[in-house]
């Protein structure tokens, strides 16, 4: 129905604006925490997009993990590091770099978009992908990747601890 369509389109545009605006801020801000906030906004926008695509579980997972864990962790780290204004790297030609790289990347983006739109153009109507569906798939077809990812998380945790800790005095490394 046209109404729902325009509604969806408006919501999509708002969310898209959030995402684009957030990511642009993120890559061009001078202060690190401003970048972090831009990133936060972008992730929230992404969660909204997921919801728009009827992947409800994914949307929630995105908010929980990506926003609630990753972004929070990043901000925590930034604040912990607490780099002074002068300790931040000076980037004299930042703007030039960004514009230059943008120009370089433009054709690639063009190609990428065009290749992607070769895929089917219609949304298939189906029921929303909620936790029931996801759960069913996760434990039947995708159980192996699921288990492996859990091991990955364990390893990552251990790795993070090992890398970030101080040298223990007297201990053999």
């Amino acid at each position, binding site marked *: 129905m046209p109404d729902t369509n325009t509604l969806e389109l408006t919501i999509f545009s708002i969310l898209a604006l959030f995402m684009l605006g957030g990511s642009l801020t993120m890559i061009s801000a001078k202060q690190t925490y401003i970048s972090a906030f831009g990133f936060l906004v972008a992730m929230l926008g992404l969660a909204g997009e997921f919801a728009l695509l009827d992947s409800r579980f994914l949307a929630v997972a995105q908010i929980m993990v990506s926003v609630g864990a990753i972004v929070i962790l990043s901000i925590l780290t930034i604040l912990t590091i607490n780099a002074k204004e002068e300790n931040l790297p000076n980037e004299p030609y930042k703007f030039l770099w960004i514009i230059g*790289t943008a120009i370089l990347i433009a054709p690639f983006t063009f*190609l990428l978009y*065009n290749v992607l739109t070769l895929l089917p153009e219609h949304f298939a109507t189906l029921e929303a992908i909620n936790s029931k569906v996801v759960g069913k798939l996760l434990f039947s077809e995708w159980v192996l990747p699921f288990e492996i990812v859990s091991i990955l998380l364990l390893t990552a945790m251990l790795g993070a601890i090992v890398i970030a800790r101080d040298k223990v005095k007297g201990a053999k490394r």
Partner: protein
Amino acid sequence: MLNLIVVLPFISSLIIALVYLSNTNASRHFFYTLMGVGSLFVVTILSLSTLYEIIQGEPTIHSTLFTWLSLGSFNIQLAFMADRLSVMMISFITFIGLLIHIYAAGYMKGEEGYGKFFAYFNLFIGSMLLLVLADNPIIMFIGWELVGLSSYLLIGFYHKNPSNITAANKAFMLNRVGDFGFIMAIALLFISLEGTGFTFDSIEANISIISHADMTLIGILLFIGAMGKSAQIPLYVWLPDAMAGPTPVSALIHAATMVTAGVYMVARYSFLYIQIPDVGLFIASVGAASALFAAVLATYQSDIKKILAYSTMSQLGYMFVAVGLGAYSSGLFHVFTHAFFKALLFMGAGAVIIAMHHEQNIFKMGALKGRLKLVYITMFIATLAISGIPPFSGFFSKDAIIVATFAQKHYILWAVTTFTAGLTSFYMFRLIFTVFHAPRKEKKTLHPLSKSMTYPLVILAIGSTFAGFINIPQFLQLPDIIITLKHSNELMIEGMNVAVGVSGMLLAYRIYAFKPKEPQLKTLWCRLATNKFYIDEFYTAIIVKPLLYMSDFIAKVIDPKIFDGFINLNVTLYLASSEQFAKLQNGNVRFYALYILAGVSVMSFYLIFKLGVFL
């Protein structure tokens, strides 16, 4: 057997060389003499037996060693051919060579490098035999070059004196200039023959394939080679300087054998030259001019060996007059007789030089008539021969040549050759009278001469006397131009020759037998003639100096600045650009990612705009 004749001297030369190199200082006089003279003795016997075979009526003997080069139609065998011409040549070459080897054993006794001398000498004999017995132009050319090499090695034998080395270089280089013509001729000959075999026999059979213009060119180019080898104008300047070598070398190489290679070559190509009589006339004219020029120069020389050198050049001129005018037999007859008396003259001169303790200026000698009797008598006989006084051999051969010029109606050539005959007699007797007759105030004690130096003189004197009676022309059977001359005319010419010779002798007697004077440098003519008309200086100025300047220029300017500079420029550019490229690798991963992106971007641009994807 022909194989043996050519190969044996090379082998003995190699053996002597190896033994000599094993210990340069040991005096193995007996071994070297045995090896050197012995091998030549064997070769002489073999040559004479080959001669005997040919006389007995056997036609040309052929003998092949191996196939040297075989590229399609260019098939060269290392093969030998003994026809009447070559067998005559090898007979007197080996015989006189043997006598000179024996003479050299005495002359070079006690000299440093005795073994080296005999190695080179044998090398020369081998090369000369190779040249004469070759059955195709390429092998003859190999012999030609080897003979030039041996000449160079032997002239520069006393290598401690730099002027000897210069003389040797000069000989070799002028020879090389002539060889340029020779090589061109052979190449042109091969091309014109269009692949129909390349031995002398087959060339003779196929001579009609070659166009007249080609033949003329080949004939001229071949003669240029002969000019270098046989010291005719303009490539003669090496011959007087070549006298810097030991006297046996002068006797063998620059009198009897090597210098006659040019004449032999023209005779060998007689089938070619009879087709092109104009070139023949040119050859004869050059020969006559050389004969006259050399005779004039000889009249003003004071060094005994230089007089003989110019005399050789003069007699060679006679030989070329003969073969140029188609009288091949007469030319080769003169080669034959000339070998005898010229070798004798040189050996006698060598004896005189040794006796006078290495003095070479004739005006410092005198009154040797009584003290060097044998040498005197033999040299006198030789001088009579060279002056063309009957019944000595020179008369017959020289006479045949002069008659040929008259009979073919080339009166200028006739006048020149007759006048030169008189001059020849004059300067040769000038030499004899000054050295042997003229009185001297002080009496120096003479250095004694070894026996090996005197016996060959006797044998050669006998040869000079009687060689004229050997009917070489009839033996050779070369394609001479038949001349018809009224018998009375012929007698008149002969008589004139004798008269000219005798009058030269008497004139020389009158001027030089009593109070010989060195040429006074009073008149311009005298000065010019004594200084050889400054031809050497002329050559140096117009050829040598520009070449030296050019090579200096190239070595100092072009080579370092242009070639090296160009290469250095390349190096500098490369280093500079690599320095710039090295800056790209700054260890920054960010930049590396940028480079990857740049590559992707270029490809994307290419895909979109050049190939029109998605547009």
